[in-house]
């Protein structure tokens, strides 16, 4: 139990952000992002192979097992995933643009570490992801929380 590490730094950063939000009034702002429709561009890879790669390369670590959760969910935020080529370019371009200190914590994936075929298989799997979030009106648990807050007396 001697781990004073980056875990702490990340935790502290999160805590600091939460503190900052809380200082504004005791609750952190959590602004929803309007979902972007899933791309409809062609897919050439093999989704089954891509699933294995998604796990092997630990993509779920930051994007969740379903692309919906974690540090960088992408279901509904398809920015760099609009097309297969966009995706591959994104992976490769990062290595070329910022080889040592990338602008975000997304790892670099050079062709040497993730061949084009694998990247396309990954993309095929990612494209199978869909939102599992129900319509807000159907979420009785969450709506009950809001209703309870509304009922509180002024």
């Amino acid at each position: 139990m001697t781990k004073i590490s980056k875990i702490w730094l990340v935790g502290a950063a999160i805590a600091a952000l939460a503190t900052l939000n809380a200082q504004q009034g005791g609750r952190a702002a959590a602004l929803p992002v309007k979902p972007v429709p899933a791309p409809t561009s062609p897919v050439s890879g093999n989704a089954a192979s891509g699933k294995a790669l998604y796990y092997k390369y630990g993509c779920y670590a930051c994007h969740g097992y379903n692309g919906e959760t974690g540090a960088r969910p992408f279901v509904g935020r398809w920015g760099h995933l609009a097309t297969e080529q966009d995706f591959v370019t994104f992976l490769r371009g990062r290595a070329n643009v910022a080889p040592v200190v990338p602008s975000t914590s997304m790892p670099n994936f050079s062709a040497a570490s993730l061949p084009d075929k694998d990247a396309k298989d990954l993309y095929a799997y990612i494209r199978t992801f869909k939102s599992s979030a129900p319509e807000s009106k159907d979420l009785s648990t969450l709506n009950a929380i809001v209703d309870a807050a509304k009922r509180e007396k002024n």
Partner: protein
Amino acid sequence: MAKSPKTSVGRRGFLKGAATGAAALVTTPIVEAQRRPNEAPTPAGSAPGPTDSQLARDAGNVRPPATVRAITRPGSDLMVQTVKDLGIEYAAANPGSSFEGLQESFINYGNPPNRMPEWITALHEESAVTMAHGYAKAEGKPMLAVLHGTIGIQHAAMSIYQAYYDRVPVLMIAGNDPDFIPAHTAHDMAGMVRSYTKWDAEPKTVEEALVALQRAYNEAITPPMAPTLVVINSEIQKENVPNLQVPAYKPPQFSTIDSTHAREIAKSLLAAQNPRIAVGRLRTPEGVNRAVELAELVGACTSTTATTGPMSFPQRHLLCGPGADTTYDYSLGLETPAAQVYIQGPNLAKVAATRDTENIGFAGLNGGGFGGNRAGRGRASAGTLLEADAEASLPLIIDQVKQQITSDQKSRVQERAAKHARANHDAHVTALEQAIEVKKAGWNGSPICTARIYAELWPLIMNEDWCLASPSNFSGGHNVQLWEHNKPYSYLGGQGAGGMGYGAPASVGAALAAKARNRIVVNVQTDGDLNYAPGVLWTAVHHKLPMLSVMHNNRAWHQEYMFIEYMAGVRGRGANRAEIGSTLRDPFIDYAKMAAGYGMASEGPISDPTKLSAALKRGVASAKRGEPYMIDVITQPR
């Protein structure tokens, strides 16, 4: 110091005899009586072999011979009385021979015995101290951790360090038995942890020990709060002190602002059209009450740190929030620098300057990146610092406000407070509506999203008296947006120094506080963290603690996993081996079985989100009965 004579020989006595030769032991009548009539005397200069009776006793097969009670009032009884008088509720310890006298007093002295404090069985010294850490954050006062000499202190060292960084008062006693096992003693036992404790002492007499315990308590609860340690020699624990009394206890003096500043602050709060009070982490629940009183007296909207840690302003108090008008013409900070004028106690850097004589230089004690509300001063502030304890200063300001306030000002305060209340309520509902649009992401996915754990838990506990004792940052911090933190102990915050192995023992400590107060404790337990010292689950069962543990089981030290992936990517070597050394697979750990092994009711693993709510209901019901419960939930990584 007079040494008490040995009156019996147990396992320890036997070991001592074997190590040091016959002379020291065979002189006592008891040992003489135990020698077999036909046993040959031990040759001079060689260690004696064990007798049959000694071996039998060592194996626990023979009751000790009845003896005339020579000790009528052991020093350790008075030490326990001193701790009782300080209002200590619990003493947690893993057994150690260096405090056998003390432990015997804790469990047998008093009427009824073993109450206030109650002896809590810990399976690891680290757990004992972290229990005290969690307890103190929940109650705003220390409990006791008792440590074995040298080895127990070293087991506890990490948790002491963590409590230190978290500015948490923990009272510790360590036994020292210089005549027993050399490896378990030291010339300066407290030296091992001196650089991250606030005060220590090694008294030479019983009387000195009693004074030292009182001083250690006072030092621990006086800002900057921190762990303190009294090393007590095993012989003075056993010394007979028939005529000694516990000295009168003198509570500590807390530094306050002076009356001039109190008058000026009150005047400014009352003169302001829209005052603001920023509330950080106060010392005790009483401080929170005083902060509420002041805010209500002057109609100031407030900020709080209740969503990041204990002892701050109630999150859903009508005055808590940005208020009707965010242009504030006067702001007062209480243990936070985010204000025009702020009252803040001394930080740990001042303690470290005198304690860290080896210049280890633990980083961040001046707020250099480790969070202003913990050890150091925090973010730079343009405000004016009044270095004093905010909690102790509040009554002075309140008195001044009461003296100065006019009837016109009272009317204005009421009007302003009503406006703030409406605005804060609306802001809260809006924030919640926005939050659920984010929290619903992955709602029906499997493994289960962490937001759903918090969302499903909240309706089950919102009408209970609850405490979230585990850090929530690694599990998404969803309580921050979805729950309402209105009690000083609603959320106990982070680990203090980012050390793992904190969640479960801190929750057990909080549950000790909760047990007598009809409160339940929620522990959203990360899997890597639990595996440091899971034996604390047994402690929760053994002492019937109202604690629900919900595993955030992502089967990895997940943050490290992501860091390794990143590093592999930076170096162009691919991330496909990042799981080596950072995941908990092959085999998966079955936490429901682990809990069951410690006697805890449990279920899981659950990966189907539709089964979560029913499991949580069972868990909350069990915790309310004082039967700790574990639900193993297979989760999304974050």
